[in-house]
């Protein structure tokens, strides 16, 4: 059985999400509650919020790793009941399997889809090259720097052409210079896909750089829902935008 693999660049259309009355967590004090949000297919939505505001929890629900305590989450109109290869996730750190080489990590989603060895190796090598790691295919994760590991995670998330990429503070553990490099790489790589991106960060500048739209979650003295939403793309160099977002945090 061989799945048809879209060529790099000929990615499938992004998927949209609809969140209605969503509460996440356990017991009487959910981490996230009363979230209503539409995420458009193909948009880059950045979720910002203070620590403990439930950003990562929200992302886990979109991935299908965490069932809602109340309300619904839909992806492409269908309720999310579990994980799917359509919604790939990039974790903050250590999301790579430490016993698999760079190549074996990147090709894993294709192996799960039963893509033949030659085809999956070719696709994995192409993505390893695109994230700037050509020559490091045989290395183990422990032999890589933090930035290189995140490049591998990015390649692994995108190699099977998912319709959404969920990124949980993927650059949060990197030094400032590496972080800037990774942000540029992400913009480059995303330009070649049509996937919807939901990106979680606590860094407003990072959000402004990457986002089509920014939502602020939680916040002081507020409940744990969406506190504010800002269109970024098309806003031009709006100097006041950063301040308005910071005020909501």
């Amino acid at each position, binding site marked *: 059985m061989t799945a048809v693999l879209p060529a790099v660049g000929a990615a499938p259309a992004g998927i949209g999400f609809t969140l209605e009355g969503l509460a996440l967590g356990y017991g009487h004090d959910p981490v996230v509650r009363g979230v209503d949000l539409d995420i458009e297919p193909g948009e880059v939505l950045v979720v910002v919020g203070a620590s403990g505001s439930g950003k990562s929890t929200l992302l886990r629900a979109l991935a*299908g790793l965490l069932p809602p305590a109340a309300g619904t989450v839909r992806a492409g109109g269908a309720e999310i009941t*579990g994980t799917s290869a359509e919604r790939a*996730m990039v974790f903050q750190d250590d999301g790579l399997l430490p016993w698999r080489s760079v190549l074996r990590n990147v090709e894993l*989603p294709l192996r*799960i889809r039963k893509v033949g060895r030659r085809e999956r190796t070719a696709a994995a090598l192409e993505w390893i090259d695109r994230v700037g790691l050509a020559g490091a295919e045989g290395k*183990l994760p422990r032999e890589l720097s933090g930035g290189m590991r995140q490049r591998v995670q990015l390649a692994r998330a995108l190699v*099977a052409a998912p319709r959404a990429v969920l990124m949980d503070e993927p650059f949060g553990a990197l030094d400032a210079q590496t972080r800037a490099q990774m942000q540029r790489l992400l913009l480059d790589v995303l330009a070649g896909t049509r996937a919807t991106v939901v990106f979680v960060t606590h860094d407003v500048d990072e959000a402004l750089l990457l986002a089509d739209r920014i939502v602020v979650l939680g916040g002081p003295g507020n409940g744990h829902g969406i506190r504010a939403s800002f269109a970024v793309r098309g806003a031009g160099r709006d100097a006041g935008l950063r301040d308005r977002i910071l005020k909501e945090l």
Partner: protein
Amino acid sequence: MTGWAVRAASVLAAAGLWQALTAADARLWLRFDRLPTLDEIAGEAARQLVTPVFALDLLQSLIRILTGFGLATVAGVAAGIALGRSPRTRDVLLPLLEAVRPIPAIALVPVAILLFPTDEQGIVFITFVAAFFPILVSTRHAVRALPTLWEDAVRTLGGRRLHVLRHVVLPGILPGVSGGLSVGMGVSWICVISAEMISGEFGVGYRTWQAYTLVDYPAVIVGMLTIGLLGWLTSAAVELAGRRVTRWLPRAARDGVS
């Protein structure tokens, strides 16, 4: 002197002491006069090594240990994973296993003799039980210590239960399990030799005990040395295999394995 020279000197000194005590028929409080000298042992070893019975005994013990240990590896890892991941399995199996676990495998010899049609199967059973529990316990702990992040990663890449088992659980528990395998191999040898002494017709343990009852003391020592050598070789093999499959660990953690 280098480290190796010191080590060699230490072994030679111990052998020399043995030779001095036995050759002089020393009767201190310990009675060395009944024990064979080094040349008697060496002569006996040289005589035995070329006999077919020696090879047959060796082969018999090895087959027993490898069968029992192999079965225990499969059963112990499977049960350990099931216990570590399924609360239902835990409810069903854990009370039974915890009730049986404190009983030393060698205490099961009478039951094994009654239960199995042949002594051979009984001995393999004892060896199996001996290795099963260390492997089970180490597997269960290793499964529970697995970071959930790896499983989350594979699931968000489209992986289902079997993918998680194959790509996360089995490789992820290897460092923990290989420690259990080493311990299991050690207790397996204790039990196979004891079981052979009680109810074997062949095997290194049986031959050693038989030599004792026949007052052939050099042969007893040769049997002991053979058992020690076999135990060392099989443990080294398990350890080597463990190191090979856990090369991905950082060096410090890898040295802690086994």
